């Protein structure tokens, strides 16, 4: 994990040719893009595409933190597991819907097991202990995936239903599959908001997040609530993995890169805030898409600077609650 982080940092070093100013900002290209309708459409849709998947992964992470107060460092591995389960289901059934459902449900069940027998024992423990448990499962899951599916990278391929030419909108290009992806992410965002704010279950979950002991004293089974939230958060990661499977190759250890980005999204949006995760994901998505035009060699840098700036101005994140 440390070496992968070191590699990530190393790989953000810009190229060694061109002036420093050229390396960082290509203002001409950026201006040309924002004054071109086709470029605006393409880059905005790209930002939404990148943000949608990030939102699905980060939502589970922020939900788990918001209710249980733990940082699930194994979240990226749950995303990986979802992708692989979806791959197997797709190979068996040739149905992307079944594959997606299998990915989400499979990881949800695994998360239940993980929470019940392992994470529950470290609630309230030092964060290093929680990190150790999660890291152990990262290694276990990476090796399990290698044993079951092999170390070679795998690809699901695009399901036949989505093998359509891209949609052209005002000169911009939007692949059909990504339109569905954005739609699913939007539906999840709305559905989660309704679930958490307009239903009894949501009320109970929020109560358990704010004051678990009082919630328990009122006769509600907080262990069950916590297990349910953890499983649901894991299922969201699995769903994200399943949805990404048609366009991203799979290999053991693939969860790490998505984990880092989902942490950034969660921190920007506010730990524990689902709406914050949506806002954070969209910010990161748009930074990546427009950054590839304006800051082609410094996208990662811009992302981290944005995160730092937000934290300086609002340490709890954009939609996070202030702690007293």
């Amino acid at each position, binding site marked *: 994990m440390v070496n992968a982080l070191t590699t990530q940092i190393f790989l953000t070093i810009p190229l060694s040719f061109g002036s420093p100013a050229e390396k960082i900002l290509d203002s001409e290209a950026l201006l040309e893009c924002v004054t071109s309708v086709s470029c605006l459409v393409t880059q905005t849709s790209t930002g939404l595409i*990148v943000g949608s998947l990030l939102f699905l992964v980060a939502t589970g992470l922020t939900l788990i933190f918001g209710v249980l107060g733990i940082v699930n460092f194994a979240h990226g591995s749950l995303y990986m597991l979802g992708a692989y389960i979806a791959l197997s289901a797709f190979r068996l059934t040739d149905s992307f819907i079944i594959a997606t459902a299998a990915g989400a449900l499979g990881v949800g069940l695994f998360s239940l097991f993980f929470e019940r027998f392992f994470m529950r024992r470290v609630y309230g423990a030092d964060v290093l202990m929680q990190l150790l448990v999660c890291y152990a499962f990262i290694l276990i899951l990476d090796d399990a995936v290698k044993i079951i599916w092999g170390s070679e990278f795998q690809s699901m391929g695009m399901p036949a239903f989505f093998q359509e030419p891209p949609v052209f909108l005002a000169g911009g290009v939007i*692949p059909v*599959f990504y339109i569905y992806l954005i739609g699913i992410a939007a539906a999840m965002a709305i559905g989660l908001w309704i679930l958490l704010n307009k239903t009894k279950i949501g009320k109970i979950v929020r109560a358990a997040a704010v004051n678990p002991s009082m919630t328990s004293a009122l006769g509600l089974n907080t262990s069950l609530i916590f297990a349910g939230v953890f499983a649901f958060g894991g299922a969201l990661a699995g769903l994200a993995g399943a949805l990404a499977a048609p*366009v991203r*190759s799979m*290999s053991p*250890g693939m969860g790490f890169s998505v984990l880092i980005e989902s942490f950034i999204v969660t921190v920007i949006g506010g730990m524990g805030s689902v709406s914050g995760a949506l806002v954070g994901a969209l910010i990161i998505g748009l930074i*990546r898409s427009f*950054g*590839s035009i304006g800051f082609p060699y410094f996208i990662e840098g811009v992302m981290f600077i944005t995160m730092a700036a937000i934290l300086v101005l609002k340490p709890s994140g954009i939609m996070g609650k202030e702690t007293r």
Partner: protein
Amino acid sequence: MQKRSQTLASQQRRQLIKGSAAAVGLASIGLPGISLAQNNPIRIGMPTILSGRVAMLGEASRNAAIMGVEMFNAAGGLNGRPVELIIRDSKGRPDEAARIARELVNSDGCEMILDAEASSGAFGVHEVARDLGFLVIHTCSETSALTADPKMRIPNGFRSARQGVHDAIVGGDYAGRVAKEQGLNRWMSVSPDYSYGLDTTAEFFEYLQYFNKDIEVVNSVWPKLFQADYSEPITRLLQGKPQAIYSCLWGGDLTSFIDQASIYGLMNGRQFFGVNMADYAVLSAIKSVPPNIHSGNRYLKSIPKTKENAAWCDAYVAKFDTMPLNWSWQNAVGIDFMLKAIKQTNGTDTKKMSEALAGMTIDSPFGTDGKITMRESDHTIVDYAIAWGDLQPKEPYMSDPYMGNWQTVFRLEQEWMKNKGYIS
């Protein structure tokens, strides 16, 4: 008095008998000891990557090395002494690779190292070899500087992997011809943002423009290694409107890129030159190879089109139930060189083996003319089969390959080395 002298004589006789028995006993203990040393296996250490995202590099490397060692042992080894591979997982960490190499030699009794590390690890192992003086053959690092740079050269260090500059020359030659035929003057690139991607892309375009002066490189996009999402590089490429695209993305990154580019329609009306496409891992992962794709041969059963190459591939598949990859043939060559040097020098002396290896030629199914040479001047292999061609969706994947001309490669390589300051 007589009785005392008889007792003394008797004692001396007993001592003589005891001493003789002890001498015979010692001798008889000594002889099996020497025999045991002769039957002790020759240990070859092999640091490689067997976990994480690049685990298939290690598995492909290990498989090929095991095949080579088993054949050597089945033929009797070195005067009855078998070879034993001691394989360790560096997890892709250069510091771990260096530590493992040191441990293999210092603690595990390895007398030489078959280094199947990626470039970052290979440079670390190379420095350990410089320090401890053991023989090392690097089998996976393609970074030219490892052997081309005189500062890197050590008498006991060798490379059995292809070199980036060789691929660039042949690739530039091939792409230059295709560009001329099809009027492809406007180019872009999409390659991973680390040393291999930067160097290989720069070298490719250098030689593309050498062979075709009309080429214009309008822009380059540099996604991160193992980047999952390529939407923004793809949209950048779409906006650049190139006629042709070069990429040295590899493995899962290349597969992801092709899958994502296909749904954007990036390849429609464009030619894509991906040096790492013609690899069975990529070809099997991409469900159908899109049109307009050109590639260099990483490893294909049909290149070179010989029964020796086909037989080796079939034997590999029969043993490991998976197709060989680029790393497989490179390790097969590396272990072949190492074992031949052991046989030729009748031992494992590093100095003697190094002298034997420099300039050695072996029969190899992967050679252009059935042979591969370990060049004496810089300890790297030459005369291996390099080809480029346009890809088809199924075997042989490249039905009409353009085979690289090694005389051209040598000539241009010399100029490249002069420009780099490696030679005067």
